[in-house]
């Protein structure tokens, strides 16, 4: 959508600057002028960084990759909201038309003890990778793609599994949770694989290990405030958390599987 007639925005960007994990960070204010409402949020940050480079300052470090809302690399707190004000939208898909001329935009990194800040807006999200490594996979080599309907999967299970698989691992759920809990992230994978035939052999072991790893990484516990669901850019539902709870109880009481020691 091109809107040449729209007024260019003048913004104050209040952004978190931190040189490294062990450095003390602080907010810095930058004035930006001539921001097109058609720019994406990350393009606005690009403009900010060009301006900083012109002034001989270090650019603001932020994670990004695909810039089309599917990779999960980008993600910052914008005015206290994970990925900004829009629902089911990543930071890269947020556009400057959502802001008013003269606004002050506060940009913070995800904050969680499990996600130490590496630099400015970049945090270390490798705890999520380690939760995945603890069981978020199917070990069996499935070979080539099978013929359609070779494995019977009911349509509702298929849809629900796909809803869980939609998680892009951005960490917004952790960022939005008052306990910095990674339950929505963990549950999305547990729920996806629990509903598919390929996930059955490791079903019990998977949930026990992924929860054990999640706890060991120092994420908080879920207190059912459902902020994660609202913040999730992929629209992952908290019903997956309930399925994880169910799977966990079932694995604990109805299987011989035991959690293996979490990796760290």
């Amino acid at each position, binding site marked *: 959508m091109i809107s040449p007639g729209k007024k260019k925005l003048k913004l104050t960007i209040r952004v978190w600057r931190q040189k490294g994990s062990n450095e003390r960070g602080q*907010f810095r204010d930058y004035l930006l002028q001539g921001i097109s409402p058609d720019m994406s949020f990350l393009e606005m940050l690009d403009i900010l960084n060009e301006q900083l480079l012109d002034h001989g300052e270090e650019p603001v470090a932020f994670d990004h990759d695909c810039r089309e809302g599917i990779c999960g690399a980008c993600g910052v*707190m914008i*005015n*206290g*909201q*994970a990925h900004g*004000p829009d*629902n089911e939208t990543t930071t890269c898909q947020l556009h400057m038309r959502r802001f008013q001329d003269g606004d002050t935009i*506060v940009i*913070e990194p995800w*904050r*969680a*003890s499990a996600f130490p800040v590496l630099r400015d807006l970049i945090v270390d999200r490798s705890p999520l990778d380690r939760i995945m490594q603890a069981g978020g996979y199917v070990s069996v080599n499935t070979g080539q793609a099978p013929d359609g309907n070779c494995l019977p999967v009911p349509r509702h299970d298929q849809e629900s599994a796909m809803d869980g698989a939609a998680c892009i691992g951005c960490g917004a759920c952790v960022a*939005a*949770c*008052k*306990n*910095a*809990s990674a339950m929505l992230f963990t549950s999305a994978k547990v729920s996806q694989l629990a509903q598919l035939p390929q996930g059955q052999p490791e079903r019990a072991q998977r949930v*026990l290990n992924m*929860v*054990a790893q*999640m*706890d060991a990484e*120092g*994420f*908080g*516990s*879920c*207190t*059912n*405030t*459902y*902020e994660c*669901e*609202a*913040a999730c850019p992929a629209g992952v539902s*908290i*019903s997956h*958390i*309930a*399925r*994880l*709870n*169910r*799977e*966990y*109880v079932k694995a*604990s*009481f109805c299987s011989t599987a*035991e*959690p293996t020691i979490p990796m760290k």
Partner: protein
Amino acid sequence: MHWLKAFLTSSVGRKFVVGLTGLFLCFFLVVHLAGNLLLYVGVDAYNEYAHKLHSNEELLIIAETLLFAALIGHILIAAGLTFTNWRNARNKSYRTFDSKREDRTTPMSFAPDQTMMLTGLFVLIFLICHLSDFKFGLGWENLGESYSPAQKALLVLENTWRQGIYLVGVLFLGYHVSHGLQSAFQSLGLNHPKYMPTIRRLSVLFGLVVAIGFGSFPIAGLVRSQTNPTSVEQVSPVEGGEAVDAETPHSPEH
């Protein structure tokens, strides 16, 4: 028993126990409220209920043990989880935080789901007072055995201090369970689009019923104490612990 230890030390397992005990305590609230409402039916009905309840000693011991175990377990595990969350979750808080939940009607810092620890703490303070009044009779020793359960209840509820503590306590209790009930279902893994919206509405309704139902007793006590107080003298004790209510001035409509 390694698996049980793993279950009870994991975040999911602990939440499961909090949910299970919470649901049991909610069930108790329903029974308790039903019993209390007999006070409005009549003093006799209430007394009969109280005597029947206390006639089966074994059952009472089992029920009370279960109840105290559930209550203590609920408090200890929930408090443990909350303190762990407070300590570990976030070493630096956000400069601003704004909810993205569109169904939030109360400001974030007052919402039931954000204040469970605080409302729970107020409920605990109220419970200590309530148990000391009704279970252990502390401060009401002068009533002795000669007053019927209904007369004791009416006298306690006409005390100004008790009216305040009980009213505030049950309001916090209602607030607590309005999130607690649906949260318990979620923690037990019972969430499905086909019934979860009903559970969520039911949870708010349950909170209202608890707050209004239990809250009506201190309010009725306040009205009674202003208009037609039950004094210790007026309630004539009868030999053998059994009391009659013929002379009691309070009428069932309170």
